């Protein structure tokens, strides 16, 4: 129809074409878009540009000027992160050709204009037969704990703190290593009871963390304070000589909730968290415990006035009610594999059959945005009835 770098079509030429095509101009809007390929128009296959499909919320973020970041190692599947969510990034192929056209209006847009031009000459920017597709996924946070466990904080006097070769990570360092959004990383750091020491994120060595907690609970006991009203300033005053003030305050934040009353800062201690930590301290010293003995020792070990309950130990310890005597042992969900299939394999290697109640705490974190425990169990396990109770076991043979 026209040669390379053709001159722009005129309205007369357009009308002539309409006549040949036997289209009635009276049935058409006055504006014609004469589409041509721009001088630099090329295919997305060249890699200079691409199309990214977004959910409306993400689109709004970009319209507000926020950035997104793609994160991934060569061996990893790339993810895309907004400031608070993580998405799997995949390429979707279409069998059709997609053309990107600047300056082209839809009929609704044209009708909204005061004057409708009779001819427009948009230049096609490029074309593609695929686009980037996003699917919300769980942030890959297991690596975060792994990195921070390389060098746990054992207190200011520890030899480790003198050694500058020990690995330490700033927030920026973590963003460069973890496939997750910043907010997801920050939330997880809080879950891990991590804190910033000297500009670096650190996880406390568990024994050190318990040492700090014991200082606090013993002080509460000796001062006869209520667990709900632990004054910060007196804690710092009394315990300051023993440990750095920042560490005492950090401990109170991890195991309590801060509030202000008449201008003074207090902490409401969290009974469940303290009982749970105490249980971990007891359980980590042996492979397994006689359940009845454990429950007795555990109750005696927590601060007076606090009550222990087995449901405080979800995701931390597992009870075996089929053994004689009944036993309990440490099983931390953090120590289990991150991938769905690997997680189920590992759980079924530990125990052939699980009730939903027992397995739920160990698969809860695998649930995606709209996924339920039930859906996961259906996908990765087989159910059967045992003594009137529904149990789940592996779908496949495990060697």
């Amino acid at each position, binding site marked *: 129809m026209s040669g390379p770098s053709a001159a722009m079509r005129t309205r007369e030429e357009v009308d002539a074409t309409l006549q040949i095509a036997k289209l009635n101009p009276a049935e058409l809007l006055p504006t*014609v878009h004469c*589409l041509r390929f721009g001088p630099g128009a090329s295919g997305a296959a060249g890699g200079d*540009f691409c199309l990214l499909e977004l959910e*409306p919320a993400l689109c709004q973020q*970009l319209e507000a000027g926020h950035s997104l*970041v793609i994160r991934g190692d060569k061996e990893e599947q790339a993810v895309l992160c907004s400031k608070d969510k993580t998405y799997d990034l995949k390429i979707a192929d*279409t069998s059709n050709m997609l053309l*990107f056209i600047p300056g082209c209006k839809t009929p609704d847009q044209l009708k909204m204009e005061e004057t409708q031009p009779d001819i427009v000459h948009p230049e*096609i920017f490029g074309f593609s037969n695929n686009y980037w597709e996003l699917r919300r996924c769980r942030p890959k946070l297991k690596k975060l704990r792994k990195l921070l466990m390389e060098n746990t904080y054992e207190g200011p006097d520890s030899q480790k703190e003198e050694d500058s070769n020990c690995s330490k990570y700033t927030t920026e360092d973590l963003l460069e290593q973890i496939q997750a959004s910043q907010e997801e990383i920050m939330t997880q750091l809080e879950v891990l009871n991590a804190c910033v020491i000297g500009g670096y994120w650190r996880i406390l060595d568990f024994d050190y963390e318990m040492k700090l907690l014991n200082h606090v609970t013993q002080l509460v006991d000796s001062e006869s304070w209520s667990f709900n009203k632990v004054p910060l300033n007196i804690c710092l005053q009394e315990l300051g000589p023993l440990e750095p003030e920042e560490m005492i305050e950090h401990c109170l934040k991890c195991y309590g909730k801060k509030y202000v009353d008449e201008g003074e800062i207090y902490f409401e201690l969290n009974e469940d968290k303290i009982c749970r930590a105490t249980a971990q301290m007891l359980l980590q010293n042996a492979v397994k415990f006689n359940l009845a003995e454990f429950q007795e020792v555990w109750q005696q070990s927590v601060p007076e006035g606090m009550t222990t309950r087995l449901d405080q130990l979800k995701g931390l310890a597992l009870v075996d009610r089929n053994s004689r005597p009944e036993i309990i042992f440490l099983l931390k969900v953090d120590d289990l594999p991150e991938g769905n299939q690997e997680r189920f394999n590992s759980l079924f290697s530990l125990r052939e059959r699980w009730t939903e109640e027992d397995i739920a705490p160990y698969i809860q974190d695998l649930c995606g945005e709209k996924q339920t425990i039930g859906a996961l169990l259906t996908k990765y396990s087989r159910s059967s009835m045992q003594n009137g109770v529904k149990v789940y076991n592996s779908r496949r043979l495990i060697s």
Partner: protein
Amino acid sequence: MVQIVISSPGAGGLAEWVLMELQGEIEARYSTGLAGNHLGDLHYTTEGTPVLIVGHHILYGKIVHLEKPFVVLVKHTPGEKDCDELGGETGTRYLVTALIKNKILFKTRPKPIITNVPKKV
């Protein structure tokens, strides 16, 4: 691990483009390629139906408002000027260049335009 930033100028700096979806492939008539060539004339009926005349064909389509909008990302690979003070590269980036909220979809068979029908004398 690699971090590639996708940066956006914000609504003020973002143009809105339109996506046109056609079946099959587009081939240039001439060996010089597509750049600079006409594709066709795009009309709309008064009811808002898109009509595209490409070569000897008419295509009727529809406007689809995209539930999931697209953005066009243009890759920016740093040159020597983009090194930061420490001499490290600022890395490949993508710039959000345009927003696409609507597409013009043509998926019916094109109708040929018959020209030069001899008239009865």
